[in-house]
């Protein structure tokens, strides 16, 4: 079984400041890792994912996350946030399937509410 812990339930920051949202996971097998974002009154959208290869992955809107296998972490960072980044962010994992593919269910963390102040 897998578990995901997001270490901060709420993160307030000022606009243009850097931010880090922390995610740790526990699993007895190798996993794929994801970050999802949920804007107010909407469903979740995939922000970025780590499947294999480079441990640093990036999104199109300036977020990045680094997979650290030894620390079982997948922290999300952005060097300069905007008001529009205000949302709830979820870290999630799923076990790697046979042949390196995944079809299994995602296990989510509790979510981190990022609030960007002007």
């Amino acid at each position: 079984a897998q578990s995901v812990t997001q270490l901060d339930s709420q993160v307030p920051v000022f606009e243009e400041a850097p931010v880090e949202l922390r995610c740790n996971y526990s699993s007895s097998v190798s996993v794929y890792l994801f970050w999802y974002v949920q804007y107010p009154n909407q469903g979740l959208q995939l922000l970025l994912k780590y499947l294999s290869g480079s441990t640093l992955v990036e999104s199109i809107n300036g977020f990045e996350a680094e997979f650290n296998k030894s620390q079982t972490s997948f922290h999300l960072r952005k060097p300069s946030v905007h008001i529009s980044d205000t949302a709830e962010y979820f870290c999630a994992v799923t076990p790697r399937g046979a042949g390196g593919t995944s079809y299994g269910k995602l296990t989510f963390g509790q979510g981190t509410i990022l609030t960007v102040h002007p």
Partner: protein
Amino acid sequence: DVKVTQSSRYLVKRTGEKVFLECVQDMDHENMFWYRQDPGLGLRLIYFSYDVKMKEKGDIPEGYSVSREKKERFSLILESASTNQTSMYLCASSWTGRAGGYTFGSGTRLTVV
């Protein structure tokens, strides 16, 4: 783009009523999922289905059932709604054999009074 459509954004039901939440996806995904989302608890899996007429319990199936008669449609049923089932319900779908994650619907906010 894949679309996952949940039939209602907001629902208000009375205690004891039978409630149906509908979810339809248009990209031939094999897998479909129902989660509930509560503040501080994240998303918890209720049921999922990996094929037509196939279903498996998630982490919190008590008080719920599901139906998947067609590949594109996955229904969540509350047999006798209770106030502790007031929550946001999210449907998602995905392909088998591809590590792309889920596509989510917009959610249904259910209030049981």
